[in-house]
């Protein structure tokens, strides 16, 4: 087995007396979907923020493709192929779906300092953006303003933008949230295909999707990983039952 694409070691973060990340260890290997689950307030969002660079950990290291990125800014990690999707869609609402995807393509190409030619008529950028939209099934919405898209379509667009980045690893923050059963099924199928392109660290509340997709599951509670393993082992783990259902379970 090759080295993990993403490796988190001893990640610790405190806000005053509150420990939100308590010595977290995690790896993400090529070809897998690694789901992170846990009750509300378990520290999932702060974990993602630290992995992606929005929040600096107090201790621990984060390695991406073998390189220590703990001290690097968000955009450097993104350029190395860390592709994040947001829980609450972070898209330019006034712009079209295509323009949002173009922004990702532009980031991946690393050539934003061009002041003259229209971005929309750059064939290379456009190809990357349109391919990504096509893959998530949004081709026919390319010219629509993001504000006009449905909730589910915005989630798809989030994934499309991540796809434009030539991703080495996906970090996905609740991609299923708010999708109906049909949309959820489509998203599940999409993620299932994507894992072969780049592994996915999937933070998700939808347990059906998690158990359908994940190769491994880590359970976060009180800022700590209380269990980690294949889905079947997690299903029967007593510590997990306690964390989710309370002591009496």
């Amino acid at each position: 087995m090759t080295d993990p694409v993403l490796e988190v070691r001893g990640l610790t973060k405190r806000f005053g007396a509150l420990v939100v990340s308590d010595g977290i260890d995690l790896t993400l290997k090529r070809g897998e979907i690694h789901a992170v689950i846990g009750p509300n307030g378990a520290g999932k969002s702060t974990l993602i923020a630290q992995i992606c660079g929005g929040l600096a950990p107090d201790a621990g290291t984060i390695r991406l493709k073998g390189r220590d990125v703990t001290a690097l800014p968000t955009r450097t990690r993104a350029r190395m192929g860390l592709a994040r999707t947001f829980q609450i869609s972070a898209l330019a609402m006034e712009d079209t779906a295509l323009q949002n995807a173009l922004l990702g393509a532009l980031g991946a190409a690393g050539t934003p300092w061009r002041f003259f030619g229209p971005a929309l008529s750059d064939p290379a950028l456009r190809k990357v953006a349109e391919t990504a939209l096509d893959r998530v099934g949004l081709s026919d919405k390319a010219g629509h303003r993001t504000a006009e898209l449905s909730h589910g379509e915005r989630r798809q667009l989030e994934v499309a933008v991540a796809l434009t980045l030539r991703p080495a690893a996906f970090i996905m923050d609740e991609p299923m949230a708010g999708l109906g059963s049909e949309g959820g099924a489509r998203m599940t199928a999409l993620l299932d295909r994507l894992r072969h392109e780049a592994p996915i660290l999937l933070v998700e509340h939808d347990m059906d999707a998690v158990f359908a997709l994940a190769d491994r599951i880590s359970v976060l509670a009180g800022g700590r990983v209380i269990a980690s393993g294949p889905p079947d082992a997690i299903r029967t783990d007593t510590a997990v039952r306690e964390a989710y259902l309370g002591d009496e379970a």
Partner: protein
Amino acid sequence: MSREWIVNAALIAGLIAVPLWAHLSGEPFTITLATRAVIFALAAVGLNLALGLGGMVSFGHAVFFGLGGYSMGILAHHAQNFLPLYDGLFLIEGTKSMPVIWLVAILVSALAALLIGLLSLRTSGVYFIMITLAFGQMFYYFAISWRAYGGEDGLSIWVRNGFPGLNTLDPIQFYCLCFALLCAALWLSARIARSPFGLVLNAARQVPARVETVGLDGQRAKLVAFVISGAITGLAGALFADLNRFVSPTMFSWHMSGEIMIFIILGGVARLFGPVAGAVLFVAMEHVLGDLWDHWHILLGGLLLVIVLFGRGGVIGLLAGKAQSHD
């Protein structure tokens, strides 16, 4: 062809036809008014790049307007009095040549915008507004206390500066020069808005987090936009000083900053021609209402309130309907 396009074309046609008519019928004052409107429009096109596209609510753009004005004033002052600007290791003389003055105005304003932007962009929101406002006051008080260049009284220039091949003393020729620069600035902003850089800036205004997570530096894009914005407003300042043959600290005042902002709002935020429509309307109101009533600022304030509270489209919004996405 959208209605906004028609409104824009009509605006440009008016800016060509009215001064031409005034020239043919011997009304130089109307040409001067049109020149004033065109220069204000240029200043506001500059600000609109920062405010409309980049979302940076700068309340200190008078800094660049004033720096442009003083670039003109100082260079021409030295040239007309035959005083070298710097006489040390080498000699720098003043100049009465517009192209040189413009270049200096652009460079000086761009440099100031770089410094102010570096500091101000460490913050955002209300802090950004207040800090740019405070920097404006800093330059204002500095200009007042700087006696060598007239202090509070400002600097007067005897004869308007020259442009190769043109007679700038002829109002219509000077107007054409200013109008050409306005068109160039509009063309530049239109290109920038649609360029890859514009795409980044546009996204940085709406969702800064997104820009970073695709590996782009939104803050730097904002800084670059702020510098370009300051440079354009600086150029307008140099023209304004040349129009009046006079420069004084009031060009730095925060009322000036507020007025440049008002041009954009009157015309319509996030519209390419908004600053032009706003500046034309402002100068027209200043002239017509100002003649009727000394206290016309009360009406201006009332109009501004109405536009802010009951509709952000401004004049162009009124004429052309809702803004459309550009593709």
